[in-house]
């Protein structure tokens, strides 16, 4: 880590919170994760998934485009979630194992700054991964759009095309140039950042990265059931069952509200107010979970 940003602060009597130090830790974290080979395996897996969309070319254009959108959005969701969980879970244990954490924390750096830097670094990395995957997704979609439109036109120009052909082309454009796709990808990114914060919180008290990964994968898999748990909780007659479901409902974030893949594929319109509300929820959850992690990390004996 570059020490230029850290050194001058030693001369001050009372150390204030410094975004510059957080930024240094964040950029270093990003570099550190980029060097992990596991990241490339995930990215290759994501690219392979995007390429698998050619399975459905024998069907109607609607089904073909649906399969591409399904596959690419699932790839973005899974890839960002895996990087968020696995990448973050390995950060603190590797710092402790390599003893680099001691050299950092003996310098005038608050533990909260260290933790925030780690979360910010992972979020930044996920941002770039999401952008790369989205560009790839857009390219696959545009290529398919071009092929489908030229197939629909069958050599004629758009001006000469009959009304049914124009309708088909409009239907293709409605699927491929759907602004709701961007909203869905944005919410997937918000979900990934939330997972980063949660994994960081878990890894502040976990004894190994494997423990954090398993816990987080369980939470990730249970998240779609949170809505059911919430509904059952309200109608549960037994107190024990009620408390148990209440606990699940409180502990597991509502990740399904950030996954709009099915709705976008079905052509539903995603309201901006919905995106803002869900983003606010994700941001608050991220903040709260980060605060919990900071409290635990503050008291952790290293």
């Amino acid at each position, binding site marked *: 880590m570059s020490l230029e940003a850290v050194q001058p602060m030693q001369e001050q009597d009372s150390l204030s919170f410094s975004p510059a130090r957080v930024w240094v830790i964040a950029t270093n974290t990003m570099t550190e994760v980029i060097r992990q080979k596991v990241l490339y395996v995930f990215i290759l897996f994501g690219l392979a998934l995007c390429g698998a969309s050619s*399975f*459905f070319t024998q069907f*109607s254009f*609607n*089904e073909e485009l*649906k*399969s591409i*959108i*399904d*596959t690419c*959005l*699932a790839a973005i*969701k*899974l890839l960002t*979630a895996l990087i968020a969980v696995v990448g973050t879970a390995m950060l603190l244990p590797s710092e402790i194992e390599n003893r680099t954490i001691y050299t950092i924390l003996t310098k005038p750096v608050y533990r909260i700054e260290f933790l925030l830097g780690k979360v910010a670094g992972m979020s930044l990395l996920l941002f770039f991964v999401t952008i790369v995957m989205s560009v790839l997704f857009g390219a696959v979609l545009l290529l398919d759009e071009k092929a489908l439109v030229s197939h629909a036109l069958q050599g004629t120009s758009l001006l000469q095309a009959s009304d049914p052909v124009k*309708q088909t082309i409009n239907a293709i454009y409605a699927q491929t140039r759907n602004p709701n796709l961007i909203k869905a990808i944005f919410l997937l990114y918000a979900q990934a950042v939330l997972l980063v914060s949660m994994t960081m919180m878990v890894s502040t*008290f976990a004894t190994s990265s494997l423990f954090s990964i398993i816990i987080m994968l369980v939470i*990730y*898999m*249970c998240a*779609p*059931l949170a*809505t*059911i748990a*919430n509904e059952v909780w309200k109608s549960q007659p037994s107190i024990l069952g009620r408390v148990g479901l209440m606990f699940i*409902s*409180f502990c597991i*974030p*509502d990740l*399904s*509200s950030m*996954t*709009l*893949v*099915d*709705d976008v*594929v*079905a*052509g*539903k*319109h*995603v*309201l901006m*107010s*919905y995106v803002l*509300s*869900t983003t*606010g*929820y994700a941001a*608050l*959850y991220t903040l*709260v979970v980060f*605060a*919990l992690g900071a*409290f*635990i990390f*503050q*008291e*952790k*004996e290293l």
Partner: protein
Amino acid sequence: MWSRCWWKVLLVVLIFSPVKVLWEGDIHKLARASGLFSAGFNMDMRGKITQDLAVAVLGGFRGIVTDFIWLAAHSNWEKREWFRMKPKLDTVVLLQPHFLDYWDIGAWHMAWNISYDASVNTAEPREAFRLKEQRYWIDEGEKFLREAIANNPDSWQLYFKLGWLLEEKKQDYKQAVEYFTKAAEFKEAPLYVRRQVPHALRKGRMNKEALAQWRKIWNGPRDGEYVHELWDVVEQEMRKLEVELKVPYSERAFPKNTYTNVLTSPVPEPAAKSKPKKTDKK
């Protein structure tokens, strides 16, 4: 570690929990208002898919799982394995109930393709059984579309498809008209949907109502998208019905015309007044 910070953690959890629950309720309300994520994970789903697939669905691969089950159903269709195909179609629409093509194509397979195959099945020599089988698949197709409408009440396509099935396969014109009318009420429905209403009325021998519908279309707007209405078809149908119903000339939309061959060809323009023939006076 915990002994020193447990109270802080507990305090944050206690403050945040009600906020979380309330905010989630708000998000769900907003989602319901805009028809989002109504296809959650439910127990019916678990009964129809294997554990591996359930894990894939929970892991965010619902769309891909659905696509592959759809592929498998298509493969069954190609092999004419109808009774293997049907449960797969049910699973597909259970997983993604808002993708209309699944409902539409599934119902079309049942009511048109499979029912026809059943009616000409050479393996079954008894005609009564063939007809029974044919009727069974038409009914299945109808049930499938009714379920589709229950899941997607805001799409005109499904009302139109059900109307089409009732008209073509069951000759239930009264109900067909009902569904075509519902489809035509949607703003985004194309023009041919509203023309289908009088067509079905005529097929059901409700000629007066059919003429009233054609008149409604004829007297309606002609600008914007209505420019593309097949006005010649509308005119032709109105002429036919006015003749058939013996509408008094004064009430007809086209009173000046002659009425010969009107049922088979478009009526020609009124003939120009013929000039008196010149006679050669010698």
